């Protein structure tokens, strides 16, 4: 057992060597230029800040391995947060009911994406671009564009609560989800089927893989995760804001690609994605600590995404080269 766990760790390090190296360099540089960076307080803050992106990036990883993409998750975050808070504050719903409804709505958006993409064989990019607008629209229509404040601590505790007085609950959720998704992708038939469909859809179909079912399930899971992220985020911010979540889908995609998930499908790992999320999170945190303006932060983040795509392209280039050798 010990040896196997050991093996799993060495494989993980080998698979993600490049990105771990980059992350280490970033951390070393930041701990030199900022005395605050390497404090326990700050590191926990980093973890809390990245937790939101982890929710979305986990779903995005599954979708991208499948060969798809989901642009609607950011808007789903807005819808579920705005509606859940609104249901409590404006409609006086009990908190558990409002949360359930918020989750159901987000999940339905994902389910809808999956059905349209799988059933009508439409490109995921355009379908989810459309649902992104629809979801964003719903959030604005329901709220009239205003954010709703919520002070009920039973709700806000979901996002602000701390385990043992120091460990933020969102980080706990994140940890649990990561474990679930690692098992889901590596140890279940469902996970194998995702890789098979993304690697070769026709071979998967002829091997008896229920492609449509798997595809719909994956998009539904992404919707569910986005809804959870939206609720946790609104609780942490004490408000449901319809404008929140814009660009979140891009952060998730960037994290996946940084972590080695192929845009063409078939390849990718949860561990890689998590390191990708961490890089984006550490960069944002570092820039904040250094007092860099948010305008400059955008620019730097853009450059990171660009480098991520470059890395992905380099990997893709290795393939035809290998195929030549194998002939």
């Amino acid at each position, binding site marked *: 057992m010990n040896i196997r766990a050991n093996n799993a760790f060495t494989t993980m390090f080998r698979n993600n060597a490049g990105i771990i190296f980059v992350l280490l360099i970033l951390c070393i540089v930041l701990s030199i230029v900022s005395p605050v960076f390497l404090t326990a307080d700050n590191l926990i803050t980093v973890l809390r800040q990245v937790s939101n992106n982890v929710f979305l990036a986990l779903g995005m990883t599954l979708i991208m391995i499948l060969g798809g993409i989901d642009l609607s998750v950011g808007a789903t975050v807005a819808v579920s947060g705005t509606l859940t808070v609104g249901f409590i504050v404006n409609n006086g719903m009990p908190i558990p009911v409002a949360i359930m409804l918020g989750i159901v709505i987000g999940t339905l958006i994902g389910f809808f994406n999956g059905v349209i993409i799988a059933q009508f064989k439409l490109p995921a990019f355009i379908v989810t671009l459309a649902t992104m607008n629809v979801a964003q629209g719903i959030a604005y229509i329901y709220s009239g564009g205003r954010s709703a404040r919520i002070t009920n601590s039973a709700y806000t505790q979901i996002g602000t609560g701390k385990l043992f007085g120091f460990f933020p609950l969102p980080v706990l959720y994140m940890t649990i989800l990561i474990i679930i998704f690692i*098992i889901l992708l590596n140890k*279940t038939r469902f996970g*194998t089927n995702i*890789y098979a469909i993304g*690697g070769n859809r026709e*071979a998967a179909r*002829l091997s008896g893989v229920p492609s449509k079912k798997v595809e719909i399930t994956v998009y539904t899971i992404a919707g569910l995760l986005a809804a959870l992220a939206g609720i946790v985020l609104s609780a942490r911010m004490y408000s449901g804001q319809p404008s929140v979540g814009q660009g979140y889908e891009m952060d998730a995609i960037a994290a996946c690609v940084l972590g080695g998930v192929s845009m063409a499908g078939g390849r990718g790992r949860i561990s890689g994605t998590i390191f990708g999320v961490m890089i984006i999170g550490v960069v944002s945190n570092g820039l904040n600590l250094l007092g860099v303006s948010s305008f400059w932060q955008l620019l730097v983040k853009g450059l990171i995404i660009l480098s991520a795509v470059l890395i992905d392209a380099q990997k893709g280039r290795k*393939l035809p080269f290998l195929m030549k050798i*194998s*002939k």
Partner: protein
Amino acid sequence: MADKILEMHHISKTFGGTHALKGINFELKAGEIHALLGENGAGKSTLIKILGGIHKPDKGEIIIDGKIADIDNVQSAQSYGIGIIHQEIVLVPYLSVADNIFLGREPVTKWGFKDKKQIYSRAQEMVVQLGLNIDVNTLVGELTVAQQQLVEIVKAISFNVKILVMDEPTSSLSDEEVNHLFHTMEKLREKNVGIIYISHRLEELFKMSDRITVIRDGNYVGTKQTSETNSEDLVAMMVGRELESFYTRTYSVQDQEVLKVENLSCDNVFEDISFTVHKGEILGFSGLMGAGRSELMQTIFGASPYDRGRIYLNGEEVFFKNCSQAIEQGIAMVPEDRKGQGLVLENSVGFNITLSNLKRLMKNKLLVSEKKRKNQINKYVSDLSIKTASSEIEVSSLSGGNQQKVVIAKWLATKPRLLILDEPTRGVDVGAKSEIYSIINQLANDGMAIIMVSSDLPEIINMCDSVCVMRNGKLVAQLSQSELSQENIMRYATGG
């Protein structure tokens, strides 16, 4: 005549650890059609890629017009007058014929704009010269495959080629279109172009070629004058051993019916197909490309729909909506296109072997048992002697023969009653072919019912207990063992 325009001496090429070519000799005279013959994987494509500047040879020299040629890349190959027509069409479908011919070297007016007039008039001239009836204003995408192929030839000629390579140009053409192509080749011959012709259809080689060079497993076997050889000789040269020892088949047909198909029809694809397969039987399906064989198999396997007819499995009528239902009922299919349909190439050998069978490898409802998975992978890697460094390496790094064994292993793991093999040895080297035949024979002996679709006539004649011949979607004959011969099958397949 009789000037050697091309000589290739002792060409060798290694990829990684495998010798793709080991000292190949080849020569071509002006106005000659010289066929290059060899099984898939024999090294024909590699040789052509070296001539075309895509690969560089490790050893050997290429002499063109008596001078040593240094072919570094595709451009320099073109400058030596070498033109290659690949199996796949490489034209831009949304551009006109004329634009395609001049793509990348469009003549311009003095203002720097594309000179449309000149492009069209020069293209038209070339088309007429070859006696073709194609409007150069048409978009390439609107032409038939055969016409597109002719456009490729026109394009090659427009580079002033002296050496034209044609890689299986007839594989997707109808008889009439083939004749048209041959007519064009005669025209080229008159213009003193030397043609290297690659085809598996021996009858075409006898009709068109002056000489035939055979290569096998990367080795040069020999060159014969076409008029002085026959198909038995050529097959023996290609296969390199007596056919008897190459195929293994011990008769094992039992009485019990496994699959019965009655009047199965799918409009415009196949029509009124009826046949039966028994336990322990190997039933062959022969016919030309496009005869509807693969489509029929896909239908039986639940992968595509049908309009009329009945399918019985073990005496019970079945209606499959998808492949997984067929798999559950004990049908397995090794598809025609190994890379496109059979394997998830970027994933591991083990991943592919267990893909269809994970249901049986579960630890509980949710999790796959790592132990059961490993056991199964090891069992099939050793049973089928799949040569792989580890079961966790990418399946794409295996040779064609071992990749095919992985596909077969995947299906054997589902413990099928009926195994459909669609072109089971396409792109498989000679050694692995023989191994696959003995595996198939063993399976039939163990009582599996097997359908084998194959375009390889010797294979189907030697392995099958009887053979159904299809033509244009109809089953035109079912030949018993004693009636099996290449001539007989071809007669039914072509309707001649």
